[in-house]
């Protein structure tokens, strides 16, 4: 069969799937003996990526696969498609998520040790329901507490290729540096700020 260029097949499949596709799933689109190699896929994706330059869409490597997505610069318009505003997560949820992401596999007790407060069941449930964390085993100590780890969906949701793309943890040796960036404002002010910055996002980028 006269087959279209690989990059067109990949583009069509990624758009039809509407989610990230792993190398394996892309290769699975072809007869076994005609499947492209990983390098061929990478080259085709690089071509696509070049085609998308200066457009509102991009192709991105996330969670061990590729995804075509509408870039952040389009958010001011595109986000109006949905009435519902994207969920905001409390600091408790985000801190728990951060500990699981950096310290996985980790038990609830270990999270509590670092945070200095108990981790409520609803926090864990929220993260599990989002599909961002899952139980990967049980620690061999009394009570056999569950150990949590992050999932592929976590990486996909936060636009990450892998855990190594998470922001660096500040090193303990350099606490003074961290000091300067600490935030002395009230939660209200922080919220007001972030609301403004959302509106200004487009404008700032244009400047």
């Amino acid at each position, binding site marked *: 069969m006269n087959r279209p260029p690989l990059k067109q097949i990949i583009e069509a499949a*990624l*758009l*039809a*799937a*509407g*989610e*990230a596709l792993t190398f394996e799933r892309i290769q699975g689109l072809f007869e076994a003996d005609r499947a492209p190699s990983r390098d061929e896929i990478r080259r085709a994706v690089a071509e696509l990526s070049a085609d998308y330059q200066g457009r509102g*869409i991009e192709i*991105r490597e996330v969670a061990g696969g590729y*995804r*075509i*997505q*509408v*870039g*952040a610069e*389009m*958010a001011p318009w*595109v*986000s109006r498609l949905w009435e519902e505003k*994207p969920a905001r*997560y409390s*600091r*408790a949820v*985000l*801190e728990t*998520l*951060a*500990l699981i*992401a*950096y310290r996985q596999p980790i038990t609830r007790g270990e999270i509590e040790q*670092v*945070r*200095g*407060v*108990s981790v409520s069941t609803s926090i864990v449930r929220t993260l599990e329901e989002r599909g961002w964390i899952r139980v990967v085993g049980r620690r061999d100590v009394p009570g056999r507490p569950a150990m949590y780890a992050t999932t592929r969906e976590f990486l*996909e*949701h*936060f*636009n*990450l290729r892998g855990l190594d793309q*998470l*922001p660096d*943890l*500040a090193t*303990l040796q350099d*606490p*003074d540096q*961290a*000091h300067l*960036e*600490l*935030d*002395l*404002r*009230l*939660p*209200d002010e922080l919220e007001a700020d972030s609301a403004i910055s959302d509106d200004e996002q487009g404008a700032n980028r244009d400047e």
Partner: protein
Amino acid sequence: MTEAAAGQASTDEPAGGGEPVARVGDEALRRLPDDLYIPPDALEVFLEAFEGPLDLLLYLIRRQNLDILDIPIAEITRQYMEYVDLMREMRLELAAEYLVMAAMLAEIKSRMLLPRPAAAEDEEDEDHDPRAELIRRLQEYERFKKVAEQIDELPRVGRDVFPAAAEAPACQPQAPPPQVSLRELLLALSEVMRRAQLNESHQIERETISIRERMSETLSRLSEERYTPFQALFQAEEGRTGVVVTFLALLELVRESMVELVQADAFAPIYIRAR
């Protein structure tokens, strides 16, 4: 929160006394920073915003630009207790961890006041600071607090980036049909035969199979509506054996009343019809 609680909070404000509330470098603050003096209901939001005792302590330390590695433990303990009291007055649900921390601070304070007993020096590090464990925990917590904020700022699906999707071409999702091996077929037959306990009496032989196959073939070539000439069922190129098999199959079909043979006169052409 009730009105009464709010009123109480503003009259009992901790800055009411003459003591400095905090000391930043050399400058003593006689009142709490402006950012704390907010309407009482906002104060509640503010107090509730702390993610626990470590978070509160960090706030107290950062607010005064103090070095996390050299916490003035007495002062910080005093401030910490003020907030804890405030939370109690506001009848906020006070997590037990806040009180555990208060006890820990008090203990550190007392250990720092006491002269270090000579005997203890052997057991502990020579430069052991009673604050060390607290500092370690504060630093550790701060790292994750900070990185949690950064994670919140990562481009997120549905907020900053949106997966692109297009209508898929009309296609039936097809499941490839199951593959069956001859071995599976044999096993299935052996199983059903074993169940029917017919292994002994119903030995099916090769010869029978070819006749039964020809029975199927012959039947499928016959029609119920019209008669098929007898000769049309035989293929000369099959040779003698083929003709015999077809004939035996035909006899079997007749015996089982699956077909009907018709002959108008003696030696007239024979016609066959499926019944």
